[in-house]
């Protein structure tokens, strides 16, 4: 299957916006923060038509930034994102409606002063997908599609629960009739019993509407459940990529293995408490990342080469790639325990 969304060598930097005075002061040797954070660093990735790509990592790893670059919300500093061969952004502006986003917090992502029906119809009217007189019926159709009662279109966001708001946010994204859906932690702020409802809705919609999607989450069990392939990020770089069962079944990167080992498992079979593996130390500051492989200060397999040279991304098999000098040693250690398997 060929690439549908192509992310080519994308980097995104965030730096201070220096005033002229600060720039002069900096030249003269004053202490002005001029370093920038490479939130996303040389990411090359493709998403195939109809597939769900999971994007996992800890906070600050750049997964949301990458999601926003793919969605055309943030322009990349370097590199390009194309959809079906056409660029998502041109000269810093989004030029397609075929990519839409569902955000994490449905309390912040809906305008509290707009009727939810207007929120959903605003985009489709502006882009000619429906007309003002027909908008009500159009929105009602999408409300039904996501499991909301169409008579609620005249209500305001505060009249809905978190799960219902997330359904509205999904309806807003889908009403633009996108080909690609970027979901940035769509269930992280929901209660456990509501999470399952939204995940089921996501699975049903992506299948029925033949959507291609990028599913960003820190929750490995959710990503494992919904994704076909998964990309693991650490400090802005993708360290491992491959089919979800293979990556989680036998991680090639020590970070993937450690991340997986840190997830608390539901203890069902043992009357003893499990001992979970912990990763030593913390994620380093992205302002001054370590040399070589970013993970080497925390990595149990690290050798001299890891602090000296940044590992290149290399294929593990036809479907998998990893950026690690010692992936063969990691893979010899065999499968990581999967979350929930106990």
């Amino acid at each position: 299957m060929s690439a549908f969304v192509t992310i080519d060598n994308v980097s995104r930097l965030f730096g201070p916006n220096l005033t002229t005075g600060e720039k002069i002061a900096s030249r003269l040797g004053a202490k002005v923060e001029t370093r920038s954070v490479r939130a996303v660093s040389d990411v090359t990735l493709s998403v195939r038509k109809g597939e769900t790509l999971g994007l996992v990592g800890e906070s600050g790893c750049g997964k949301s930034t990458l999601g926003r670059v793919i969605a055309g919300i943030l322009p990349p500093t370097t590199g390009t994102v194309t959809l079906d061969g056409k660029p998502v952004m041109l000269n810093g502006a989004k030029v397609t409606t075929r990519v839409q986003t569902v955000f994490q917090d449905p309390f912040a992502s809906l305008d509290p002063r707009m009727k939810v029906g207007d929120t959903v119809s605003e985009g489709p009217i502006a882009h000619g997908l429906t007309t003002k007189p027909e908008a009500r019926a159009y929105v009602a159709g999408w409300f039904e599609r996501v499991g909301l009662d169409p008579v609620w279109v005249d209500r305001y966001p505060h009249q809905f629960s978190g799960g219902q708001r997330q359904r509205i946010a999904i309806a807003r994204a889908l009403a633009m009739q996108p080909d690609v859906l970027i979901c940035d932690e769509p269930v992280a702020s929901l209660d456990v019993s509501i999470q399952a409802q939204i995940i089921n809705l996501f699975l049903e919609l992506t299948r029925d509407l033949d959507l291609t999607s990028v599913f960003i989450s820190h929750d490995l069990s959710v990503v494992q459940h919904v994704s076909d392939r998964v990309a693991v990020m650490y400090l802005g770089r993708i360290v491992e990529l491959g089919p979800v069962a293979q990556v989680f079944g036998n991680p090639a990167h020590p970070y993937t293995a450690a991340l997986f080992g840190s997830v608390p498992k539901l203890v069902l079979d043992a009357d003893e408490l499990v001992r979970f593996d912990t990763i030593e130390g913390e994620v380093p500051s992205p302002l001054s990342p370590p040399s070589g492989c970013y993970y080497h200060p925390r990595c149990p397999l690290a050798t001299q080469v890891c602090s000296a040279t940044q590992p290149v991304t290399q294929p593990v098999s036809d479907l998998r790639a990893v950026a690690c000098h010692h992936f063969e040693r990691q893979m010899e250690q065999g499968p990581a325990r999967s979350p929930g398997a106990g």
Partner: protein
Amino acid sequence: MTEPALSVTNLTTHFFTRAGVVKAVDGVSFDLAKGEIMGLVGESGSGKTVTGFSLLGLVDAPGRIVSGSVKLNGTELTTLSDKQLRSRRGREISMIFQDPIATLNPMLTIGQQMRLAIDAHEALSARAAEARAAELLTQVGIPSAKARLRAYPHEFSGGMRQRVAIAIALLHRPSVIVADEPTTALDVSIQAQILYQMRDLAAETGTAMVWISHDLAVVSSLATKLAVMYAGRIVEQGPTATLLRDPRHPYTAGLIASLPAMATPGMPLTQIPGTTPSLLSLPPGCPFAPRCDRVIDACGTEPQMTLVQNRGQNSGQNRGWRCFHPVGQPDEALA
């Protein structure tokens, strides 16, 4: 049997709002032995946090503990004056909150804050206080603790801040710590480190803990027993592994079944229909009845806690549930 560190009986906390009486905690009872960790699990609005606040007498108006008893090492807490309570908070019972940014004072160094917490209950020399503070920071895994005493909260990462909050909670070796979602805001790798340490600390110091969480997996790897809350009530309680492997209450069973880890990847998850009820307008009878697929006529009246003695591995330990038609086949003898 020795006296429990914490004994809660029929704890009831209501909020008297303009819209009506919100029964946030409604008849909660449990015992906690020395060094025991109990997981208090529930969704938002289930009353788990208000239960935690009630234990320390931290419920503010319009909320009030209406009835029930909280006994800490045999002393009744609910009838104490504010002053008497204050002399126990932080010394005999302390709390760790979810958000370490909100609990630490940004204007004071870590050392100054720990000193305040020490001075509140003990007269120690400056040197002794500093030594105690540094010792606790080391114990919770903060490197070069002595130097870090002079740092401000903003100089710490989220995980490190939560460790500081834990160290402060541990300063006076309290017999009970109430931890309200202390790892929810943290990354999994940091969460794992902290869970691991808390388990060791509880075993080492004999501190009993109430660990409040919405995450079944987190508490299952930490707590020896669980209490599941729904709409202000404990609907099921028992030893962790027994309760998770063999849930009796349909809500507990539904929560476990809805976890992605319980399903085949890509297949629909088992879901509990509907949403949690508003505590302002609870239906009469079992609060879970409107969402329950096993509902019968009897559910129109409120079920009481059915307590049974476990046999086999956890013999002697109680488990219980509030349901007229529990899931699974009860094989225990009624107590």
